[in-house]
């Protein structure tokens, strides 16, 4: 297999498998937030900024996969 073809396969597999986890995690965070807002709509002003921050931290694992894919494509 060509090194270039191997690089493309590697980057594609890294990004594909690496996006499953963060997507599930962010969905869980959003689901719990929606539940809380549904139960008590008055707290939604306090809840939404914290939810956004929690999602940004869950996103980190997907970003690690992205950094590895970028290093494979551009720097090796």
């Amino acid at each position, binding site marked *: 297999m060509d090194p270039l073809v191997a690089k493309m396969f590697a980057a594609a597999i890294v990004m594909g498998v690496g996006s499953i986890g963060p997507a599930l995690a962010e969905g869980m965070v959003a689901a719990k937030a929606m539940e809380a807002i549904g139960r008590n709509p008055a707290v939604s002003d306090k809840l939404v900024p914290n939810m956004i921050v929690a999602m*940004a*931290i869950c*996103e*980190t694992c997907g970003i*690690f996969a992205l950094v590895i894919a*970028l290093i494979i494509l551009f*720097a090796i």
Partner: protein
Amino acid sequence: MEAVSLASHTQFMIGPVPITDGVLTAFAITLVLAILLPLLMRGAGVIPTRFQSAMEAFMEFMLRTFTTAFGNEERARAFAPLLLTLMLFIAIANQLSFVPLVNQVVLGEHHLFRLPTTDLSATIALAILVLVISHGIAFAVAPVRHIGDYIKVGHLLHAKTGTQWMLALIELFLGPLELLSELAKVLSLSCRLFGNIFAGEVMVGIITGLSAYTQFFVVWPVNVLGLLVGFVQAFVFTLLSTMMIANTIRPYLDLRDAKLGKVTEGSTGHASVHP
């Protein structure tokens, strides 16, 4: 794939130090901030202008976050300039591509400016800065106790029975693993910021390069997403650095304040027993 290159391009060297396009942009941001902010705050008085009210609301929100992390308000005010500067610099550095013509200035055949946070060296430098500050202050306040947190000989000296010896030895060998976790914190902090902003730039570059028809309208939603991500990531970086500094420093500051007789939020006012 020539959208954005991963490594910065060195424009020239000053002595042994290479000045890359990311460094030039960081200098430019610092210069602009140093000149612009005093001018904007010049009309500050008791009756606030619109800009001043916005800044005050933002300051109060951040001070509340710092007070929760550090314990009392005077410590929060002591650390606030560092953390707020960090947040301001990162927020502006992430959004600089919205200022027109910044990405188009070309010197020779390479771009002259490049967002500093799209350079992994810059984000690692910021994370190492936070690490050095937290451990440096921990050393300055309580040097022996801080080293004792990593090389745990205390248990060894107090051990009496066989099981206690075993546990003390295990603690002695597991102590340096904490150093590894500090390194992991630095890496995760820097990679999170770098990955988010670099991915935004790459996506804009690719969509713009697809065809002449996608250059204006199609790229706009991606740009707006980049704007949102830039602000959120600046806030998350500051929040996590606050947690990192506060978790390292707070036990020693609390002990020192308890000896001096001050009460902080979250402590009982008595010196806690440290094994």
